[in-house]
């Protein structure tokens, strides 16, 4: 059972982790550019972005392997400046897992507990608990080289969790697993995080992974955070064209604003004969402004019949490609302007009579509130 959990919308809530105007430079390269970010206790937080966007640097600054060039990072009110990695209440699961090859599974898990000087009995008990948590009791005496990729991943997770850190950092935790295992593990990670009530921060370049697991996602690009929001908001209300294109598939129609009618924007685009009608009341635009209209493929309707003279947001094209994915069918439709749109349709019934075929002329429509206006 999931609780309603949204401390970020509570103005009185104190964040567990604060990045305040953090900048990190490596020579001339800027890996983090004046970042400010709050992460709350118990959150499953995802740093999402293409490789080289600075997400790993951000995580390494939290772990203590890098120090900010400017700005302050605090954890539970404590300034982390100058605190070495071995004195931070933060543990990390490495992308390569970084299991100690000369130690057995149980020794790997016990390593951090030994550093704390816990009594032997307690270490044994905690290691047992961790092995149960990741279901590896039978492999306690094996060495990492004798484990499969999925098993290694579990050992790495157990080792990082053993010390019960305030924050667990996970660097591309599922990157090395195959697709099926990845999906299972995603849900397992969510359950573990929920059960332990721990704060998880995951770095990933895989938007699906971020969408599935995270309470909130911070999308990063070129050392900046471009949007911090829940997965739903990121997907349905992307702030920039970069986010719209990076998270999920999207069709972009370029045009310029004609004006506002009854609270709806009218946008002229070369892709459609009649100006488009878009319901995106939050945008503040002026006439003549160049904008991009973003519409997700599943929010477009493809049909062979002419939708009639009163229909709004009608695009005409011919079917260029059809991809049958089982649960979905993807149509790639070529407009007169040469643009290719991607439209998906759920295969709700097993048999369709007279399905849409290659090279057919089709009409694509979408509702005014299915689209998002992105100021260029």
């Amino acid at each position, binding site marked *: 059972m999931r609780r309603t959990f949204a401390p970020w919308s509570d103005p009185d809530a104190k964040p567990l982790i604060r990045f305040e105007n953090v900048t990190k430079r490596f020579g001339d390269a800027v890996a983090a550019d004046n970042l400010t970010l709050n992460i709350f206790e118990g959150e499953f937080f995802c740093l999402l972005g293409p490789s080289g966007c600075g997400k790993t640097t951000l995580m390494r600054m939290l*772990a*203590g*392997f890098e120090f900010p060039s400017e700005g302050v990072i605090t954890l539970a009110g404590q300034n982390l400046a100058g605190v*070495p*990695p*071995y*004195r931070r209440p*933060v*543990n*990390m699961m*490495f*992308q*390569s897992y*970084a*299991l*100690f*090859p*000369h130690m057995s599974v149980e020794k790997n898990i016990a*390593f*951090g507990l030994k*550093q*704390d000087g816990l009594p032997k009995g307690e270490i044994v008990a905690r290691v047992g608990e961790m092995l149960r948590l990741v279901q590896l009791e039978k492999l306690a005496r094996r060495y*990492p*080289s004798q484990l499969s990729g999925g098993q290694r991943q579990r050992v790495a997770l157990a*080792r*990082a969790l053993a*010390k019960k850190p305030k924050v667990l950092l996970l660097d591309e935790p599922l990157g090395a697993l195959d697709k099926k295992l990845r999906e299972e593990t995603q849900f397992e990670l969510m359950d573990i995080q929920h059960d332990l009530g721990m704060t998880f921060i995951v770095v990933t370049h895989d938007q699906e992974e971020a969408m599935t697991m995270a309470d909130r996602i911070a999308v990063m690009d070129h050392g900046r955070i471009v949007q911090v929001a829940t997965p739903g908001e990121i997907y349905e209300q992307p702030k920039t064209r970069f986010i719209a294109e990076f998270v999920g598939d999207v069709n972009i129609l370029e045009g310029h604003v004609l004006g506002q009618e009854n609270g709806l924007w009218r946008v002229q685009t070369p892709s459609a004969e009649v100006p488009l009608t878009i319901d995106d009341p939050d945008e503040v635009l002026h006439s003549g402004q160049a904008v991009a209209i973003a519409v997700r493929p599943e929010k477009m309707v493809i049909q062979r019949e002419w939708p009639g003279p009163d229909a709004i947001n009608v695009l005409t094209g011919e079917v260029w490609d059809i991809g049958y994915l089982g649960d979905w069918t993807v149509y790639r439709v070529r407009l007169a302007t040469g643009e290719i749109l991607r439209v998906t349709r759920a295969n709700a019934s097993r048999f369709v009579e007279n399905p849409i075929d290659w090279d057919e002329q089709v009409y694509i429509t979408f509702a005014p509130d299915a689209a998002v206006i992105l100021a260029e």
Partner: protein
Amino acid sequence: MTRRLSPFNVTALVLGFAFLYLPILLLVVYSFNASRLVTVWGGFSTRWYGMLFRNEALMEAAWVTFRIALLTASVATILGTLAALALTRYGRFPGLTLFTGMVYAPMVMPEVITGLSLLLFFVAIGLDRGFWTITLAHTTLTMCFVTVVVQARLVTFDRSLEEAAMDLGAPPLRTFFAVTLPLIAPSIVAGFLLAFTLSLDDLVIASFNTGPGATTLPIRIYSAVRLGLSPEVNAASTILIGIVTLGVIAATLLSKRSVIRSRRNAH
């Protein structure tokens, strides 16, 4: 690559190995010669080995050599490992190339020059030649071999292992002893064995820096041969060859295994 051995390949292989090892093989065979004449085969015997162990001068030399080699290898291993760590871990610092070159220089420097310059140095600082000067000289020579072997391992070392240890609460020094050292240990042992065997069979540098009471086995054998060949020397040489061969094989296996293991763990 073809796997078949053509007649040409076989010939080349046989000639090559014969060129390299025939003299040594001859020496080993004649160490089991019953005859006192080195060049005439008089049947199989191990009498020269028995004589050898009763020859006090030779045994004394062997003992000195062994002590020098052990001390040399120990000091060279520590210094060489530290040098390897510095060269791989400090990242790019001004003079890195120069330092790397300087560490490797003794490997390619003619031994006569190394020996002579060390002799001049020891004379200049007024150090009496003998056991300690040979040990110091051998350490200078063998340290770079340790560095090369250990460096090869460190280059493939996954740094995230050390980061993981620190992340789990181990300060840098404990991280080194709990994680880094056990993982690079095979290559350190390989370096040690290499240094040991190099010190064991060195003649040139040892003879430059030797003094009274510090005659090593190679020096003893060399001077014995100058007085006339004796089958005893053959026997002593055979034992020396055996030890060196074992040492080099062990060093090769250890460093190879250590590098392979590090690669396997990287995937």
